[in-house]
């Protein structure tokens, strides 16, 4: 990471700390904002958060590792999450999953080479009455068919 980039990131995190405060309970909102902006929380970002909240960097790392929606390695620009829980499963999740995998040429858990899309499974998205369901970043799609899913994926920029 360049010094300039580091300084920019530090500025950004300082602003977040100003916004949410320095108490420990601000940790998750701060990490969530960094995640949203950069799609991962780098080692340097973790150290800066730890320094500004006056906690050990290992604490920050431990919290990130606990939550499925926070990660310490870069992911794609968009995260596609397909619900794998039983109601969606019975409504045709497998066919949808295979169609997406074929179309993108990657498996679940992987990122496309152009870093555009990371493909993941999620547990129950609360759309059981309209499955199979898919989250693209924070947008939800329901009643998927393989064709419709591929259409949605192809429109992702």
């Amino acid at each position, binding site marked *: 990471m360049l010094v300039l980039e580091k300084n920019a990131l530090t500025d950004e995190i300082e602003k977040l700390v100003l916004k949410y405060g320095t108490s420990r309970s601000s940790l998750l909102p701060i990490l969530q904002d960094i995640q949203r902006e950069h799609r991962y929380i780098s080692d340097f970002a973790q150290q800066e958060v730890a320094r500004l909240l006056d906690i050990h960097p290992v604490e920050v790392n431990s919290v990130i590792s606990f939550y499925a929606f926070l990660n310490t390695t870069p992911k794609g620009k968009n995260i596609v999450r397909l619900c794998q829980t039983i109601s969606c499963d*019975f409504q045709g999740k497998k066919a949808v999953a295979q169609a997406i995998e074929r179309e993108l040429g990657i498996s679940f858990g992987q990122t496309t080479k152009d870093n555009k899309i990371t493909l993941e499974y999620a547990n129950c*998205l609360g759309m*059981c*009455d309209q499955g199979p369901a898919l989250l693209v970043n924070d947008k*939800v799609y329901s009643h998927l068919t393989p064709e419709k899913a591929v259409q949605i994926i192809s429109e992702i920029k």
Partner: protein
Amino acid sequence: MEKKMKRKGTVIFSEYTRGEGIKKALQKSREDILLEIRESKLKGRGGAGFPTATKWMLTAAAKSDVKYVICNADEGEPGTFKDRVLLLEYPELVFDGMVIGGYVIGASEGILYLRGEYEYMLKSLEDYLDAMRKDNLLGKNIAGKKGFDFDIKIRLGAGAYVCGEETALIESLEGHRGEARNRPPFPVNRGFLHKPTTVNNVETFASVSHIVVKGGQWYAKHGTDKSSGSKLFSISGDCEKPGVYELPWGTKISELLELVGAKDTKAVQVGGASGTCIPKSQFDRILGYEDAATGGSIMIFNESRNMLHVLKNFMEFFVEESCGQCTPCRIGNTKLLEGVEMIENGTYTFGYINKLKDLGKTMQVASKCGLGQSSPNSFISILENFKDEIFNGNGGVHGK
């Protein structure tokens, strides 16, 4: 996404205008509201069924300058989506209930813990809170009541099922890993930031808003003696009309199946992955805290479904979602999943499966929180109720 409210009952979806409950509550004393809620016999709608009046009384009685009201909107139980409908279509019921809670227990801050998967609702909920602030239903001297200040903020979860457990949720709000705490002390005495805290389900708050307006007696008229009022059921699986249904407690499973247009039903999973699987022979059981309890999740499986596949899906879920801090849950769920895979591959022995059922019973008593205490339920109930299909040639390895 479409709106999926299928059946509006006469309790939760009875008429209600925004702020009605708050204004009515602020004319009464705290004690009167508590008595009203006690009379309604309202129990926690998350599934555990703790009497709401008792919880609020304990929080109100706890000595502290600072207290908190937390709304648990970390709806992660497989097959549950009633909170999604409540928050999207009836936020007034939920937020009014939180303000009333704040007034009763003496809190000035409320937090809605919204699961990360529901981030798409955040904007509309924030806008709604802003509108409440403009109407003086949030903020200082609410609805003209001098000295009653209360505001609500929304915090997002980050994809952890276990955070639906109230002490894990509090840990998460405090910026820690979402690992459940030992109890006691209970949150009513030492909750968020070690202050007295009441944590209630979205639907519980919605019920309170109605009870304050229409009275505890009116509420208790619905449902059964041990389970008063009505309940929102999230119906999914093999039926013609899935969606959210409001039905009185005490409804028979067979009645519900008819209502939603379910045919050739083999099994009904009541209470989500952590609930129990009820076979056809027991469809005359009733939904209620005294019999088949549920936080709302009802999943219907017809004759064509492989129950071992259902069980495997549930166990994979628990292995993934166990937080890992206590051994019975961390290791136990892994062992149960291995057992399911052995059955699938035909490498099991009955002796070992029986040992796993015993392990499940150990997990039910030895796990630290509700996750590990309830995750063996489906393992035990599915293997017991569907042993013919799974072991005797109609399913499993020899499956159709």
